[in-house]
């Protein structure tokens, strides 16, 4: 194969390009958090973390951490000008009440009807859900950022999730290591794909039919290495 899948920072970069000026955004723990690093210049984006901070910035320098000032991933953060603190019920009022423009989460599986599975892969081990089941409801747009397939090559974009669901019909856009896919009326609509990757090849790595409506743009991102 002549194409190389995007690395996580590259997927994050692509997702970052879509965040509008003045948006309020919640980035899930892990890969979604990378998105903030690639915020396009000139856009003012306010980040929300569900443990009760609106308007935070990058991590502090090592040794400068204040461990009462952390994000949902329990990492130390710094405040941006115009920040505010609030308790958990107010924080999830922001989430559930439709006050965030965008939430971005990771995924084990996304189904063509917008179902998301991202909190457990089976019935073994200790289950943990955190804020995921709340975050998938309420934000004006809920997007997923993920590798296109699992480590052993299985599709993560599927007809129907086989892992336990996080939410039903909640995802509207998926940024993967190979493509950008919208969820539109119960089907995957391909918007962008890696230029060197053929449609047939992408389809073979996807667990449900990819539809096309108009042009499929080239998914091109900086090297970032």
């Amino acid at each position, binding site marked *: 194969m002549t194409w190389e899948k995007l690395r996580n920072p590259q997927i994050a970069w692509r997702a970052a390009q879509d965040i509008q*000026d*003045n948006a*309020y955004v919640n980035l899930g723990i892990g890969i979604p958090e990378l998105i903030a690093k690639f915020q396009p210049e000139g856009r*003012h984006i*306010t980040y*929300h973390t569900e443990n009760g901070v*609106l*308007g935070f910035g990058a991590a502090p320098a090592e040794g400068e951490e204040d461990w009462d000032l952390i994000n949902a991933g329990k990492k130390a953060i710094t*405040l941006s*000008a*115009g*920040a*505010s*603190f*609030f308790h958990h*019920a*107010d924080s*999830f*009022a*922001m*989430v*559930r*009440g*439709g*006050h*965030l423009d965008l939430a971005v989460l990771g995924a084990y599986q996304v189904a063509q009807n917008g179902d998301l599975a991202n909190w457990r892969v089976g019935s073994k081990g200790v289950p943990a859900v955190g804020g995921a089941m709340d975050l998938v*409801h*309420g934000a004006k747009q809920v997007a997923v950022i993920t590798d296109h397939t699992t480590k052993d090559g299985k599709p993560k974009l599927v007809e129907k999730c086989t892992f336990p669901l996080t939410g039903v019909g909640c995802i509207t856009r998926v940024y993967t290591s190979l493509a950008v896919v919208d969820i539109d009326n119960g089907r995957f609509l391909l918007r962008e794909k890696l230029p060197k990757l053929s449609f047939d090849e992408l389809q073979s790595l996807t667990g449900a039919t990819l539809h096309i409506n108009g042009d499929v743009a080239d998914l091109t991102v900086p090297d970032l290495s």
Partner: protein
Amino acid sequence: MDKTISTLEAAVADVSDNAVLMIGGFGGSGAPIDLIHALIDRYKATGSPAKLTVINNNAGNGKIGIAAMIDAGMVAKMICSFPRSSDPRAFTDKYLAGEIALELVPQGTLAERIRAAGAGIPAFFTPASYGTELAAGKQVQEFDGKPYVLEHWLKADFAFVKGALGDTYGNLTYRLAGRNFNPLMCMAARKTIVQVSKIINAGGIDPEEVVTPGLFVDGVVEVPDPQQEELLIRTGVEYA
């Protein structure tokens, strides 16, 4: 990001006919009289916005503020807990003449329904009004052997709010008991417009002291010397 609106006229420009409009304040405490009067000015000049549904704890007092809106004929319906005041004539006359509708809501239920709208909670159970005529037709369910009434969220198209300090991102503080319904209404309206006594740069309010975070606010307009309903009434001012 700068949510500053330069004039009261511009601040109230979007409110449309038939809109549901929340107005903060409890009596005159925390009441955004200047926004209300700017809206009345617009109505008198253009005939719009008309047929408004107004949500407030009360239904106006004297001949200013919400009472003046009612007298001007802009209000089709009030949703409130207590449509009485020291001079409730504006509402009373129209209500008894059948010219204005009233949805009466217990005060705590009113507050919680507004909060629920802001918090994405479509309905909740409350003990208030169980067994009374205000619970007529509502779903009742027992919890721990006690009956409760199901109440629904109460959303609005617009909210008019009075704050003390505001920053350019819309972060707000309030003055004394002027808080009342204001922070809740900020959460519950599609578009929230706030008059504050002073607008400062983002970062000017200690993050610990922000009462309403800016994401609940769409526009802030500075009114350095705001009108106070109670004082207007005591000095006999008429705005209608």
